[in-house]
């Protein structure tokens, strides 16, 4: 399991624009590098990232080999109602890592 870190405000006012950050510890191996044995190191990257807010997708992104290891994503959304932010990273093998954060909207 990869380590993930997410950050969202615990509380917000309805209609407020909130900053959200998410990071996953991942090598983002491009597939273009040669190992010490002269063999190509197989590609292994996060392919897709998405964030749901109370069940509705508010942000998603396709990742590509040029992205750095431990990819860090920062975006904003509008606080509408109290609920759960869930984060989902999908890698080349279809393996999924998730994380979540709760936001209380007044």
């Amino acid at each position, binding site marked *: 399991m990869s*380590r993930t*870190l*997410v*950050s969202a405000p615990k509380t917000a006012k309805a209609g407020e624009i909130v900053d959200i*950050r998410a*990071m996953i*510890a991942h090598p983002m191996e491009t597939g273009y590098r040669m190992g010490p044995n002269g063999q190509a190191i197989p590609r292994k990257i996060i392919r897709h990232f998405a964030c749901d807010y109370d069940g509705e997708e508010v942000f998603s992104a396709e990742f590509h080999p040029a992205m750095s*290891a*431990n990819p*860090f994503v*920062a975006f904003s959304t509008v606080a509408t109602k109290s609920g759960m932010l869930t984060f989902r990273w999908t890698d080349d093998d279809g393996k999924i890592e998730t994380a979540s954060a709760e936001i209380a909207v007044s």
Partner: protein
Amino acid sequence: MRLPSRLPPLSRRSLLRGLAAGAAALGAPTVLAQSGPRVVVVGGGFAGASFARALKREDRAISVALVEPSEHYTACPMSNAVIAGLRDIGAQHFGYGGLEDDGIVHVPQRVVRVDAGQRRAVLADDVMLDYDRLVVAPGIDMRFDAIPGYDAAAAELMPHAWKAGEQTLLLRRQLEAMEDGGLVVISAPPNPFRCPPGPYERASLIAHFLKTRKPRSKLIILDAKDNFSKQKLFEQAWAELYPGLVEWVSLSFGGKVTQVDAPARTLTTEFGSHKAAVANVIPPQKAGAIAATIGVADQTGWCPIDPATFESRLVPNVHVIGDAAIGGAMPKSAFTANAQAKACATAIARLLRGQEPESPKLINTCYSLIAPDQAVSIAGVYQPANGLLSEVQGAGGTSPLDAPRSVREEEALYARDWFETITQEAFG
């Protein structure tokens, strides 16, 4: 109409007396007028002091004025030991008497501006120094605009202690006053900055202080980088000497400090916040302020140079050495400053004789204490390549991992000898 000279006659005369005493030849009664060429040095740290002396060694006929407002210099290397209560700040102080004995004129003033066209430096007391070559060695200044909440006032509560002196003692007092069980936070800056292994040597020595004096305390390093100098050696030392005491948080894992609240001693990162008992914020840095005033600093805040002569790429006849210069692969250290000073002195002596400067080879070595009597080191060799100082591949290296304690102890002795040698050469 010609403007009258703004020179106060007394300071001109007293300055002249100093110069006449120091220089081999007596000149006409204009400021710094000598038969030999005139070189003005701005800044009396390792770079400026080493340069002034090296140039005098190259050619005694060159008159050298060192403009430095302080009466003594407080050296940074070994100052982490002062913070950890292992060393007296007095051991860091060096005066300019030795330089004056060599015929260098110490002008205890501040340069306020430079007229590059006239090749003239103007001091705060309106004295003007004409030069053939100006050498700028201002060291660093903190960037108080880089971390929201961290300004000069905040540094009185969360010391940076990245220029040795009062700040060093402030951090030491805070550590001594801290209750056992407190959290010490060090915020380490992104590259480039003065003394790349410095934050981690500091962490090691503070960890030693905590382990021996306040063993229930903890130390967190919040880092704006994902890797750092001598990382494996430091991490091994922390695991062996201070298990469970030191935690390093990398950039990827939320180590970058995005805001501080100095009165509350709180540091906010991208993923959370830390409330410290003692916070040591080492902010991003830039070339000492005078570099920007003279016009030798670019938009990065540092000074682009020709790697063979250290002449500024922005202002002709002005050279920049030491931490303020963009040293390419060369780290910002006292050893580097000293090596660049000597290479620059050789280049300037040749230029003043109308000769072509040669391409230098430079060496840097940095020792870091991991405990009061144990050290690790890194060494590198550098030469101009593609317009920058580049590392000569395969020429340097670090202390071995997994070395016995005796090797680390031996290196601590080398570190002490190194400090003796370099301070003797620059100031002794």
